[in-house]
C-alpha cells in the first residue's frame, strides 16, 4: 500500500450561496504526477486552494502525510512542504528573477543580503532540473514560460515536495509546454509529488500517473492513466446527466444576419490571436461557439461587437459593413449583446437597475428629449421589464450591486432582449447564475430565436451549447477547428474538436468518430 502524501476527504466549500465544492475527494501519492481535471467551475482550483490554505473549507478532512490538519494557512502549507504555482503569477515585475526567488527568505550576510550564496543555491536547482532561467533579468523582461519556471524554482527553494500547478499550460505555447513537462518529469524522478490541474485531455494523458475528475463541484472518480483514454475522461468530465434540456424548437432560418469573413484580431498580449475566422449566423438560428476558454472566443466576440479592433477581414451585420465601427453604431444597426462578464461590461454596479436597463437606449426619444432624461418613462419601462423577466427585487431603483448573480444577469438579458435587435450575441449567458436563472435565460434565448433573431451563443458549457444551438462552431487556438449540426454531434466529439486534435472531416459531416 502506498503512503499518501495528501488526503482530502468529503470536502465542502461554499461561497455565499454558490457551492464551489459539494463533495471533494483527492489523494496524492509520493512521487506521482496526479492530474485533477474538470470543466471550468468544476471546483478544481478551489480544491487545491483549500489545500494550500487560501480558502477555509466548510467541512471535510485534510491530511498531510497522515497528520490531520485543522485550519490551514499558506504559511502552514509551505512549512508542510506544499507549494503552489497559481494561474496568475505572484512575482514582482520590477525585481530581478533572483530577487523574486529569495524574496522573504533572503540569505543574510550581516545586515546585507548574501546574493552570492543565493545564486549558488538557486543554481543547484536550475542545474538539477535543467531549467532555463536568467537570474539577472527583471520579471517584466522574461517570457511567461520563464516566469512560470521562476515560480517553480521559488517553490522548490522554500522546500516544497508537493507542487501544485494550477492550469500551468493555459498560458504556454506548445513548445513551452513540452519544456515544462520535461521539468515536471525531472521533478518526479527526484521524488517530488505533483498535482497538475488542467482541462486539456491530451496533456493530462501525456504527463499523469493518475487522473481525478471533478464535475459540477463533485468528485467523479480517479483512474490510472494506463487504464483510461481521452474519450473516457471526456465522458467523466462532461457527464451523462443532462440538466435543463430545453425542448429545441426549430424555426425557419432566414437571411444571413451576421457574416464574419476571414477576420484577424489581436489579443491582449499577442497579435493575431484570431487567425482568419469566418462564420455566419442566419435569422432564426442559434449558432453555438464552443471552445476552451482562452482560445479566442472572447476576442472574436469583442471584434464583432466593436469593442476590439479588427486587424483584417470584414464583418457584416444585416449586410452592412460594421468592421471598425463604434459599439454604439453597431448597436443602432441591430446588435444586442450579453457580454461574458456582467461585472466588467454588462452592468454599471454603481447605478440603479432602471439606469442599467435604459443605458443602451438613453438617447432614444423614448427616454430623453433635448438631452433631458425622462425619469418617469425609464421607471415605467424598468418596472415592465422587471415583471417580464422576473428581476428581484422588483424595485428598479435599487442598485445593481445589491443583486444576486442570477438577477444581475437577468438585468443584462432584459436590457438586450428588449432592444429588439436583429442579432443577439450571448457570451457565457448563464455563467455563475443559479439553476432557476439558467433555465429562464435559456428559455429566453430560445424565444429570441423563435422571434427571428440570429443568436450567436458562446459558452464554456458544452451541455448548454448542445441543448440550445442549431449549429455548432468550435474554436481552437484562434481558428475554427470544426463545425457540426447540433443534432448530429455529441459532447465527446465536440470535446475532441475543442482540444484541437480531431478528425475534422468526419466531424464536419457529423459522421461517427468511434
Amino acid at each position, binding site marked *: 500500500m502506498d503512503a499518501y502524501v495528501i488526503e482530502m476527504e468529503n470536502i465542502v466549500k461554499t*461561497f*455565499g*450561496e*454558490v457551492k*464551489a465544492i459539494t463533495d471533494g475527494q483527492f489523494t496524492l501519492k509520493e512521487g506521482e504526477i496526479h492530474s485533477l481535471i474538470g470543466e*471550468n*467551475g468544476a471546483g478544481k*482550483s*478551489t480544491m487545491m*486552494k483549500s489545500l494550500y490554505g*487560501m*480558502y*477555509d473549507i466548510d467541512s471535510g478532512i485534510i491530511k498531510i502525510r497522515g497528520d490531520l490538519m485543522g485550519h490551514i*494557512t*499558506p504559511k502552514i502549507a509551505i512549512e508542510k512542504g506544499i507549494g503552489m504555482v497559481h*494561474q*496568475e503569477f*505572484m512575482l514582482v515585475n520590477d525585481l530581478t528573477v533572483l530577487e523574486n526567488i529569495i524574496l522573504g527568505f533572503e540569505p543574510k550576510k550581516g545586515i546585507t543580503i548574501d546574493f552570492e550564496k543565493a545564486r549558488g543555491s538557486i543554481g543547484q536547482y536550475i542545474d538539477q532540473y535543467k531549467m532555463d532561467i536568467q537570474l539577472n533579468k527583471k520579471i517584466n523582461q522574461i517570457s511567461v514560460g520563464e516566469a512560470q519556471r521562476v515560480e517553480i524554482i521559488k517553490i522548490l527553494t522554500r522546500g516544497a515536495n508537493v507542487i501544485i500547478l494550477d492550469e500551468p499550460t493555459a498560458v504556454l505555447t506548445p513548445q513551452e509546454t513540452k519544456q515544462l513537462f520535461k521539468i515536471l518529469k525531472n521533478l518526479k524522478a527526484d521524488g517530488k509529488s505533483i498535482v497538475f490541474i488542467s482541462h486539456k485531455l491530451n496533456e493530462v494523458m501525456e504527463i499523469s500517473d493518475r487522473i481525478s475528475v471533478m464535475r459540477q463541484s463533485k468528485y467523479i472518480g480517479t483512474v490510472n492513466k494506463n487504464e483510461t483514454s481521452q474519450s473516457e475522461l471526456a465522458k467523466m468530465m462532461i457527464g451523462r446527466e443532462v440538466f435543463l434540456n430545453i425542448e429545441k424548437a426549430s424555426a425557419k432560418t432566414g437571411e444571413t444576419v451576421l457574416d464574419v469573413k476571414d477576420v484577424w484580431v489581436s489579443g491582449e498580449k499577442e497579435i493575431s490571436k484570431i487567425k482568419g475566422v469566418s462564420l455566419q449566423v442566419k435569422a432564426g438560428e442559434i449558432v453555438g461557439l464552443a471552445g476552451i*476558454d482562452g482560445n479566442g472566443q472572447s476576442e472574436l466576440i469583442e471584434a464583432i*461587437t466593436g*469593442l476590439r479592433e479588427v486587424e483584417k477581414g470584414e464583418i457584416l451585420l444585416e449586410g452592412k459593413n460594421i468592421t471598425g465601427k*463604434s*459599439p*454604439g*453604431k453597431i*448597436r*443602432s444597426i441591430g446588435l444586442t*449583446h450579453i*457580454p461574458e*462578464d*456582467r*461585472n*466588467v*461590461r*454588462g*452592468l*454599471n*454596479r*454603481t*447605478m440603479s437597475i432602471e*439606469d442599467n436597463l435604459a*443605458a*443602451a437606449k*438613453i*438617447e432614444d426619444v423614448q427616454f*430623453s428629449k433635448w*438631452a*433631458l*432624461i425622462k*425619469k418617469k418613462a425609464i421607471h415605467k419601462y424598468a418596472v415592465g421589464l422587471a415583471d417580464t423577466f422576473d428581476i428581484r427585487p422588483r424595485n428598479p431603483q435599487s*442598485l445593481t*450591486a*445589491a*443583486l*444576486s*448573480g442570477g438577477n444581475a444577469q437577468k438585468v443584462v438579458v432584459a436590457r438586450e432582449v428588449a432592444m429588439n435587435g436583429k442579432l443577439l450575441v450571448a457570451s457565457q449567458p448563464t*455563467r*455563475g*447564475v443559479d439553476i432557476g436563472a439558467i433555465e429562464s435565460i435559456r428559455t429566453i434565448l430560445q424565444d429570441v430565436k423563435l422571434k427571428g433573431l440570429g443568436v450567436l451563443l458562446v459558452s*464554456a458549457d458544452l451541455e448548454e451549447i448542445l441543448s440550445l444551438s442549431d449549429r455548432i462552431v468550435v474554436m481552437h487556438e484562434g481558428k475554427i477547428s470544426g463545425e457540426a449540426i447540433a443534432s448530429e454531434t455529441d459532447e465527446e466529439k465536440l470535446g475532441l474538436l475543442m482540444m484541437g486534435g480531431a478528425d475534422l472531416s468526419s466531424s464536419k459531416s457529423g459522421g461517427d468518430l468511434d
Partner: protein
Amino acid sequence: MKATMQSLIKILLTMIFALLIGAIFILIIGENPLEAYVALVRGAFNGKLKIGTTLASFTPLLLTSCAFAVAAKAGAFNVGVEGEVFLGGITAAYIGINWTFLPKPILLVACFAGAIIVAALWAWIPAVLKVYYRVSEVCVTILMNSVALYITSYLVSGPMSAGVANAQSLPVTVNLTQFMKPSSVNTGLFVAIAVVVLVTLVLYKTTIGYKIRSVGTNPNFSEYVGISPKKSLIQAMMLSGALGGIAGCIEVLGVHGYFLNNFATGLGSNGMLASLIVKNNMVFAPFMAFFLAMLKSGAMGMQQSTGVPKSLVDTITAVFIIVATMELLFKFGNKKPRRGGGTPPGKTANADIETQTRTGVNLPSAKTTGTPTHNEGEVTT
C-alpha cells in the same frame, strides 16, 4: 438615501476630528482652543465686512470645487482648474477692456462667454491627450497650470500692462456689482450659485450627465452600451474648464476690476481639496467650499484677537486630507479578501457574491472616482 446620510456623517466626523487635532496644536502653543475657534468664527462672520469677505472667498471656491468634481465624475483628475481660472480671467479682462463698442449688458455676457470658451479649450488639451494618447491628465494639467500662469503674467506685464508698478491690466469697463461694501463680495456669487445648480442638474438630469457619470464609474460598460467614453471624458473636462473660466471672470470683473497677476493662486488647489474631502459629491462640495472659505477668512481674525497664528488653518485643512485618506485606507483594508485569495477566473459567481457583501453601502459614483483621486491628491496638494 442611507448612503448619503452615512457620507454626511463621515464628513461631519472628519470635520470635528480635524478641528480636534487643531485644538491640540492650539493647546501646545499655550492658547485656549475654544477661544481661538470662537475668534475664528467671529473673524468669519462678525459684521458685514467679515461676512462679505467670507462670501467673496467662497465664490471662486464654489466654482473650482464644482469644476474639479465634474471632471472627477468622468474619471479625470483635473488639477488644471487653476490654469483655467487664470485664462478665463485674462480673457474676461481683455474683452472687458477692449470690446467697448458693445453695450454694457452684452459686453458682460461676452466677457463670460469668452472666459468660458478659452478655459474650456484649455481643458480640452489634456482631455484629448489623455483620451487619444493615454497621457496622464494629472501631469499635463499640473504643467499646464504653470504655462497658463506665465502666459497671463507675460500679458499683464507686457501687451496688456496698465503701466503701473504692479503687474496688472487696465481696469475693465464692465463690473459685477459689489453689494456688501467694503467687502468685495459681488453679484458673481449668485452667478456662481446658479451655475453650480445648473451643472448639477446637467449631471443628474440629462443624457450628457448620465453618460459622464457612466463613463466615470464604468468605462467598459459605457463603451459596451454604445456611449463613447472618449467623448464624455472630453465633455466633462471642457465643462470643468468652463467652470474654472467663470471663476476667473468673476474674480476679474467682480473682485478686482482688472487682471491682477497671480490672483488665482491657490483657488484651483483649494477647490480640488473641497471636492476631494467630500469625494466629489456635487451636493456636499459647496458646503465644504464654504467651510474652507470660512476657515480662510476667519483665520486673520483669530490671529489678531488670540495668539494663534493663522497658519493653523492650514494645519486643519491638512488634517482634513489625512483623515479623508485614512478613511479610504480603512475601506481598502475591508475590501481585501483573505490572504492571497485571488478569485479564480471563470468563477464570476463567487466574485459576485463576495463583492456584493462588501459593497453593502456604496456611495454612488463617488467611490470609483474617489479612489484614485485621493492617492494622487496627497501628492499634488
